[in-house]
């Protein structure tokens, strides 16, 4: 059996190179196809990871906790006690990596010349660091130092819109806990710059205690944002937290940002569809090429059979030939895709389409990301469907009647 196996293999290998040009042409088609599959998959994976990362960075986190009506009506009225014992207990979970609590209310900001509406976020700078984009996005001035920091950080685009700059004062107006209009002057201590314009124009940040003071509350927050060690645990942990704190509203990132979730899912589904399309495009060529090589060798196969080789052996031989062809194509395709991804470095810069990208919840640099799951999917589509498709020419070869075949020119 072992001997037959190696005979099968070496016959197939040599047959493959009998018509070098033809094999190279179809090999090129396969390599191109595999390359296209993996390279496109890497691009889509990069996009969906980018969407996910941005979504989580943009104040969302993996899980958020709010008072039960806050999401419908995000105002000061819907706040909750931070130091509630049950809540404190349930947040003490080894799976939770980081927690940041925020006071997050609508406000109006006014410079000397212009005013606009936005969201004011009071944060504890130390806890916030690393959970959202803020600390890494400061381009001028400084980050907040402590919860009592009375400075304010605003977006660079907002500063332009308000015709103000670092070091200047602005006035922030909001509703306090009794629904009275309250205001306070802040000095701009930092400017942040993100790729999403809406974020830059729509949010300002100050110390948690400073914002509590402005709104007349103490020890209460509107939002807790949670980062887990493992994002895949998000549904389980969220369910646990909800169960332990029935009076609060626990939501995962995918519930908070359904559009991002949708985009991520769309890319996920498109992987397989794209692989199938590419495979079909090259499948016709593979079958045709193999059929040609089978028909050229009609005489030879007839001879084999009259020498006593079973039809199964002939079928196996053609089949091994095509599997060899596919394997070489896969190897080279994977290699080229990997090299192309390396060549793109950090990713491709699409800042020319910045505002279009923002509509699609994307930022300006899209990295190419190869993960093993995508590699396995692409390679299995080619090898499994390829093996199935090549059964057809192989079956053709084995079906020849020896006496007829041998007399054919």
């Amino acid at each position, binding site marked *: 059996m072992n001997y037959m196996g190696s005979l099968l293999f070496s016959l197939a290998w040599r047959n493959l190179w009998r018509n070098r040009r033809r094999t190279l042409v*179809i090999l090129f088609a396969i390599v191109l196809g595999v390359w296209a599959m993996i390279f496109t998959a890497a691009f889509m994976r990069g996009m969906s990871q980018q969407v996910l990362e941005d979504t989580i960075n943009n104040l969302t986190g993996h899980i958020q906790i709010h008072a039960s009506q806050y999401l419908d009506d995000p105002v000061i009225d819907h706040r909750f006690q931070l130091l509630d014992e049950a809540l404190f207990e349930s947040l003490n979970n080894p799976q939770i990596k980081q927690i940041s609590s925020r006071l997050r209310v609508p406000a109006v900001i006014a410079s000397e010349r212009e005013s606009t509406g936005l969201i004011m976020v009071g944060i504890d700078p130390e806890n916030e660091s690393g959970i959202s984009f803020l600390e890494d996005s400061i381009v001028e001035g400084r980050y907040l130092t402590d919860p009592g920091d009375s400075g304010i950080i605003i977006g660079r685009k907002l500063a332009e819109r308000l015709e103000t700059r670092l070091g200047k004062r602005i006035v922030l107006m909001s509703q306090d806990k009794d629904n009275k209009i309250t205001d306070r002057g802040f000095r701009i201590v930092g400017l942040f710059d993100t790729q999403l314009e809406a974020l830059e124009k729509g949010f300002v940040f100050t110390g948690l205690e400073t914002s509590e003071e402005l709104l007349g509350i103490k020890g209460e927050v509107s939002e807790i944002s949670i980062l887990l060690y493992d994002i895949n645990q998000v549904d389980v942990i969220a369910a646990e937290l909800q169960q332990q704190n029935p009076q609060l509203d626990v939501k995962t990132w995918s519930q908070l940002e359904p559009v991002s979730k949708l985009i991520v899912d769309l890319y996920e589904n498109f992987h397989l569809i794209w692989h199938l399309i590419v495979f079909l495009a090259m499948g016709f060529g593979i079958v045709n090429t193999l059929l040609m090589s089978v028909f050229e060798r009609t005489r030879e196969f007839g001879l084999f059979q009259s020498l006593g080789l079973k039809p199964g052996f002939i079928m196996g031989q053609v089949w091994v030939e095509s599997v060899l062809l596919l394997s070489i194509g896969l190897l080279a395709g994977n290699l080229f895709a990997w090299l192309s991804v390396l060549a793109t470095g950090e990713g491709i810069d699409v800042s020319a389409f910045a505002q279009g990208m923002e509509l699609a919840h994307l930022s300006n640099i899209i990295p190419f990301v190869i993960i093993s799951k995508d590699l396995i999917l692409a390679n299995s589509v080619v090898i499994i469907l390829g093996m199935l498709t090549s059964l057809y020419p192989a079956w053709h070869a084995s079906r020849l009647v020896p006496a007829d075949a041998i007399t054919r020119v």
Partner: protein
Amino acid sequence: MASTWRFAWRNIWRQPRRSILTMLAIAFGAALLVFSIGLQLGQYDLMIQNSIRIYHGLIQVQKQGYLDEPKMRSSIANISRLASELRQQTGISAIAARANGFALVSSEMRTYGTMIVGVQPEYEQQVSSLPGVIKDGRYLSSETASEIVIGRSLARNMQLKVGDELTILGSGRDGSVAATIIPVVGIYESGSRELDRNLLQMPLQVFQDVFNMDQHGHAIVVYEKDVKQLETMRHQFQQLVSTYDDLVILSWDEIQPGIRQAIELDYSSGWLMYIVLVAIITFSILNTFLMSVLERTREFGIMLALGYTPFNISRLVMLEVLLLTLLGLAVGTLIGVAINYYFYIYGLTFSGMEEMGKLYNIPATLTPQMSLKSIFLGPAVILVFTLITALYPATRIRKLQPVEAMHSI
């Protein structure tokens, strides 16, 4: 000449299985391209149509610089008169003047900072679909009526219903305090998050009174359904306002660059995939063309000996490729058009489409575009690719020597 055609036709059917497989590969590519290009173009049409229809119009007349820095002071004097002059001079009645401002808007319970727009109700209905999507109450009745309409999301956040009163507090064009109390007469629901959450409309003259605008406004919106008229209309209006040296004509895509960029990005990434796909198909059928030449060396030798020129034979081979490709394209295009026609009648939708639609301002059902461009663009690209590919085997014929060729098997 006729005999060459017949020759080519018969040659194709000498190897029916091979020819059919090749045709299928081409047909598959053509059908896929017709379908996806039709769907893409259809989606773009919807995106453009809706962004024009819902609020922004095809072109706008604005003060130079207002688009980048929308300041109250960058206004157009006597805007109603200018708008009515433009209506008279062009004969287009869908021309409406607007004034934009920002203010703190308070209900009994809540205060939000939002955009307020002064409109000419009579003409606004012709340039924007917003007046037509009033879900509660009615639209503004006249240019002088002291009343306001508000978006669904904002109304919900402010806990407002039709008949309630709003307090508006902002600053006027001259920096003075602008304040008034005004009743809500209608609540609209456009489906666009931005408009439903962040926009109030009141009659232009009332707006001008409240915000101390004198007769000023910020934009004249011109609606035209047919996007192809853009350049003509832009030119026409350019000339009409040329007496004012600081007015500019802006097109829909300058006002909303995001939509255009999203389209361009999608279109170019789509083409990248199509080209890769067409290349794979071309390579996978190259073998068919190559073999049909190589296996007929003997035949070509005889033809040469009979007095055919290499040019005649090359032409014959090219003709075979052309016929085969055209057949495949015809089948594929028909299938593609049939699929598109089906969705053209019944619409195409998938889960999550509604969320996606809100993001891009399109309805939850997609209809493919049925135009010459959407149907023939894809097949034309395939035809060009295959004909280029066929040049390679055809050139090999030129190297044939009659005697040698006749001796080969």
